[in-house]
């Protein structure tokens, strides 16, 4: 492996959780999750020569992973429509996560793709400015949206428990 590949491997290993969480947020079946994880890592590797080491790797990684995930989900929906194959999510049967975490993912999965990204970034502990940078909106907009999404998720969680 050359030095770029070694550096990439080291950074990816440190931040691999990002790939995992993005994949779980946008895909429900194990096969889809594996495909998307592979696609994200491909895109990361392709973009790596343009990565500036002075900037945050995790923010850069989130942008690529989320862009890939949203594009992949849309591409898969077109492909399945053309192939007349329905996507049947089977979270319960295939998940290796604790029930509570599955419930979390299901709750987030009810949101629109861009809002899902926003909540994921917030849950992963990014500051509003960092979230704004990843999504391409203002920090003020991030705060407003998070406030609204909190209310939506609270209502959804209450409906789920009743």
């Amino acid at each position: 492996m050359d030095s770029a590949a070694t550096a990439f491997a080291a950074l990816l290993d440190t931040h691999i959780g990002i790939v995992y969480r993005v994949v779980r947020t946008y895909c429900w079946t194990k096969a889809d999750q594996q495909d998307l994880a592979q696609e994200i890592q491909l895109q990361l590797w392709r973009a790596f020569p343009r990565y500036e080491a002075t900037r945050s790797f995790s923010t850069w990684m989130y942008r690529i992973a989320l862009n890939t995930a949203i594009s992949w989900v849309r591409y898969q929906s077109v492909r399945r429509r053309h192939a007349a194959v329905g996507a049947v999510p089977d979270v319960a049967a295939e998940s290796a996560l604790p029930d509570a975490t599955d419930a979390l993912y299901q709750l987030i999965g009810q949101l629109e793709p861009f809002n899902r990204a926003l909540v994921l970034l917030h849950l992963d502990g990014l500051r509003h400015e960092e979230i704004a940078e990843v999504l391409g909106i203002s920090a003020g907009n991030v705060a407003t949206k998070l406030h609204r999404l909190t209310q939506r998720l609270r209502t959804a969680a209450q409906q789920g428990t009743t």
Partner: protein
Amino acid sequence: MNLDELKTAWTTAHASIETLQAQQAMLQRVVQQQAAEQTRTRLQRAPMIELVLAAIAMVALGGYLAMHIASMREHPLAALPALILLLLSAVVVVVSIVQLRLLARLDYAQSLTTTQHTLATLRTIRVRSTQLLLLLGLPLWICGPLVLGQWVIGYNFPSAVDRTWLLANIVFGIAAAAGFVLVAQRLRGRSPFWRSVSELAAGKDIDQANVLLGELRQFEQS
């Protein structure tokens, strides 16, 4: 439940799983790096092929028109099929260049809204250009044999055939295009090919791209 409670549950649940994921990722990496180069060209392939073919057609048609300029002055109608094909080729060249430029600009490391906007624009252009070729190509099919005939045999077909014959062929082409779309709609449930053609004609992918653009606009507004 609020977002802070969610955040705590989220962090706890993921801590143990990430080590396992890292090991799996290491195993996959070598294969993925080899496949990366193939993915890079996949998106560019169609517009690149179209650009090359249309550029060749433009050069050939330009040469053909220059060669027959004298006879075409006497029979201006004879230049029409070649001019129509030349115009179609020029449109394909322009559309291909626009797509390739957008693809060159496409960077997944940009913000979500920027990248998804570029992707939706690309999808719209791609579908529109295919629709254009399908819907114009079939009615104007007669231009191809007329130009080819004159080129190969040297006989001035456009001046030899009467206008009714030409018109009848164009009408036939329009009917064939409409028939093709109708057949695609009827057979859409039987195979992925017909489903793709039917949805292409209906502009379903454009609808999807517009939905994405709408979602983006809504998301960008606070």
